[in-house]
């Protein structure tokens, strides 16, 4: 058996679960999308910042290298050291043996150049040529190592530098840290500019990645070391000579001296720094991701909690609501269960019920009232039946008991037996009527249709009742159509006779002394009207509907002769309906009653 409450609660829980699940999923999904968007934006921002800091690091390194380079550039000078060339004093023997030793002839050239120098203090063209040659070996870039800037913060790694100049034959200056390696000088680097710099990274030698800054700048200083007087000369790097110390340079507009400085440093620190930055970034990334995860987890928890609480609250609410909604039903059901055959009232005020149940309750109350009426009538009927049967039975028993009490005369016995017979006949009559009604109820009553001259039948009925009527001092009239054919219809003559007999008996029974009874048969269209009219006591209008009920008697006090057990009119109505007719009653209190039976001329078997 399915319970409304559990079905409703079940459906509601299903619906609620779907709704809550859907809503929670939507909220979670959109929050997640938003959070993920935010996270990716934050990550992007962090990444950008990281990139910027990387570049900043690089740039600061580059700047430091540039500063270093510029500082170097400021301190570097081109030294033309005449004495740098390995000068050998002219010696004839040496001169003569020179061709005999390997490369010996080559040494003869400087000697040749020295010769005039040796012999004349004035420079000669030959001397100039020799200078140029000297320069080949004597021009170099020099740096006062002691003025080198101590590597500063970004430049904690080993520094490499190489300084080249555009001075022909000038030897580049390389830092000792370079060892045998050298920086390649890019062709055309900063060709058309006086100052140009450019950072880059390169592999100095396998395994040594360095950051390099190349700077092209003009040189500040040039120093000439005088051609050596014959004798040792001390090389000196001192304050710029007046010839080269003019403020910013261009000593020779024809050929400005430019320097290309290459300063490089190992990447260890930068890499460390970058590593640090990247780790920092990763940590931040992780933090942001974790934050998102935590936020999502918290959201999930909250959603679950909210959904759970909502679910429980709504479930309880639903339960309560359903209970509340079904309460009137329960009250109705309780009320109905309290109805018994003893008490047919519905113990419920239908006004206290919701409007939906009102029709049910009022219908139920109406049905119960009808049932009560039927039940009361049934009880009354049983009482009536018992009365109707018991009285003649009592008479029979009483009479026989009396007869047996003592010996009696034959005449007396005859009289007593006659009384018994009359009582038995009365019982038989009542039983017959009840059986008739029972047959009608069971639907087994048979209708035998045939052509019936109603006028003739009515006359016969009247002649049967006439003695009774005359005994009661009543006038009995029978009016039939002049043309007998008019009153001929197809119907069941036995039933019709029973109908007329009952109506006529009633008319006699309830008439006043010296009253009248009129039976009129008339054909109107395709119906035959049979009116039985009396001038009796009449029936109250309110009771007219009830007189056809079984055992109903308008007057409860009457003779118990069996004919008036309250069954006659009930049988009449059933018969009329069986013959597809209608019966109507019209009555005025104290003036009389008229029963009108309308029968179709061509009867079909009724219900």
């Amino acid at each position, binding site marked *: 058996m399915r319970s409304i409450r559990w079905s409703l609660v079940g459906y509601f829980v299903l619906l609620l679960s779907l709704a809550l699940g859907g809503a929670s999923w939507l909220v979670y999904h959109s929050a997640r999308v938003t959070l993920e968007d935010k996270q990716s934006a934050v990550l992007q921002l962090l990444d950008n910042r990281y990139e910027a800091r990387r570049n900043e690091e690089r740039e600061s390194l580059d700047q430091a290298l540039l500063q270093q380079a510029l500082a170097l550039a400021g301190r570097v000078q081109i030294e033309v050291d005449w004495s740098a060339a390995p000068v050998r004093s002219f010696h004839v023997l040496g001169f003569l043996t020179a061709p005999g030793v390997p490369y010996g002839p080559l040494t003869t050239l400087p000697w040749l150049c020295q010769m005039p120098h040796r012999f004349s203090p004035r420079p000669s063209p030959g001397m100039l040529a020799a200078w140029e040659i000297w320069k080949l070996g004597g021009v170099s870039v020099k740096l006062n190592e002691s003025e080198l800037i101590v590597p500063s913060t970004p430049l904690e790694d080993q520094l490499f530098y190489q300084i080249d100049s555009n001075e022909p034959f000038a030897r580049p200056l390389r830092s000792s840290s370079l060892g045998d390696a050298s920086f390649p000088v890019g062709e055309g680097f900063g060709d058309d500019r006086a100052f140009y710099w450019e950072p880059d990274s390169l592999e100095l030698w396998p395994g040594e990645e360095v950051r390099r800054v190349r700077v092209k700048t003009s040189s500040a200083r040039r120093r000439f070391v005088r051609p050596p007087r014959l004798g040792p000369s001390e090389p000196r790097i001192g304050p710029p000579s007046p010839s080269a110390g003019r403020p910013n340079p261009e000593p020779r507009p024809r050929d400005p001296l430019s320097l290309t400085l290459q300063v490089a440093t190992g990447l260890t620190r930068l890499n460390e720094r970058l590593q640090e930055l990247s780790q920092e970034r990763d940590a931040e990334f992780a933090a942001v991701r974790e934050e998102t995860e935590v936020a999502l987890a918290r959201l999930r928890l909250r959603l679950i909690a909210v959904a759970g609480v909502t679910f429980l609250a709504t479930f309880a609410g639903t339960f309560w609501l359903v209970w509340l909604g079904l309460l009137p039903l329960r009250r109705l059901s309780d009320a109905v269960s309290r109805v018994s055959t003893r008490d047919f009232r519905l113990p419920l005020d239908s006004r206290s019920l919701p409007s939906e149940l009102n029709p049910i309750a009022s219908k139920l109350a109406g049905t119960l009232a009808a049932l009560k009426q039927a039940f009361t009538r049934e009880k009354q009927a049983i*009482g009536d039946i*018992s*009365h109707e049967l018991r009285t*003649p039975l*009592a008479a029979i028993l009483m009479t026989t*008991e*009396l007869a047996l*009490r003592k010996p009696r005369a034959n005449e007396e016995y005859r009289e007593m037996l006659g009384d*018994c017979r009359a009582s038995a006949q009365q019982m038989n009559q009542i039983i017959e009527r009840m059986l008739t009604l029972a047959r009608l109820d069971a639907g087994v009553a048979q209708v035998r249709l045939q052509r019936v001259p109603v006028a003739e039948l009515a006359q016969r009925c009247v002649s049967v009742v006439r003695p009774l009527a005359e005994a009661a001092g009543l006038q009995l009239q029978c009016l039939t159509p002049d043309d007998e054919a008019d009153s001929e219809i197809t119907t069941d003559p036995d039933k019709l006779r029973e109908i007329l007999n009952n109506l006529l008996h009633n008319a006699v029974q309830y008439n006043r002394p010296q009253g009248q009874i009129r039976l009129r048969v008339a054909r109107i269209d395709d119906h035959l009207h049979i009116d039985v009219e009396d001038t009796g006591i009449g029936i109250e209008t309110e009771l007219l509907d009830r007189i056809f009920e079984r055992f109903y008697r308008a007057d409860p006090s009457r003779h118990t002769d069996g004919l008036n057990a309250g069954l006659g009119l009930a049988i009449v109505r059933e018969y009329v309906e069986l013959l597809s007719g209608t019966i109507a009653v019209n009555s005025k209190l104290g003036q009389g009653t008229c029963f009108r039976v309308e029968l179709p001329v061509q009867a079909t078997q009724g219900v």
Partner: protein
Amino acid sequence: MRVLVVEDHRPLLRSLRQGLEEEGFAVDIAEDGEEADIKARSTSYDVIVLDVMLPKIDGLTLLRKWRREGINTYVLILTARETTDDKVRGLDSGADDYMTKPYQLSELLARLRALIRREHQIKDPIIRVHDLEIDTASRMVKRGGNSISLTPREYALLEFLAFHRGKVVTRRMIWDHLYDEQDESTSNVVDVYIRYLRNKIDKNFDPPLILTRWGEGYMMRGEG
């Protein structure tokens, strides 16, 4: 004892009447409510046997009307209605007893006797006056241990006197209670029956129990 039987079923009425008369009751009959009403008002009955379903005025209405108007005659309702509700309604309307149809004549008679005893405030069905014993149940009369056989009418007279012992009963009272409406005897028939009764009760015994009060009537000697 005079009884009014109200019943509209003629065969039953006839046998009731005969049965009661054979037991020595003086029986009046009424076939409808109106007739019963008139008779109950004009005659002082010992008991009225009343059917409920009656033409014209139904039994219970009639009973309530009598009780309201102070007619206190004992009423036994005799009806086919046998439910408790019906019985309660009948007794509450003022009836003294209730019997349902069909019934045994002997039970009806016993109930009638009981009602008559109640009327005279007697519990013992055997009335004892000196050495006279009247068994109202079996209608046997003994004096000094010897049975005396009486005709129903003689018995009825003796019983009536015994019920009123110590009190004077007039000839009229005797007449009213021992003769029914159809009896056409004259009032001196009472004296005749008193003489018969004395012959049977008092003749060979002492003291005489039936006393004559000149100018008033008769009296049965009281206790002691």
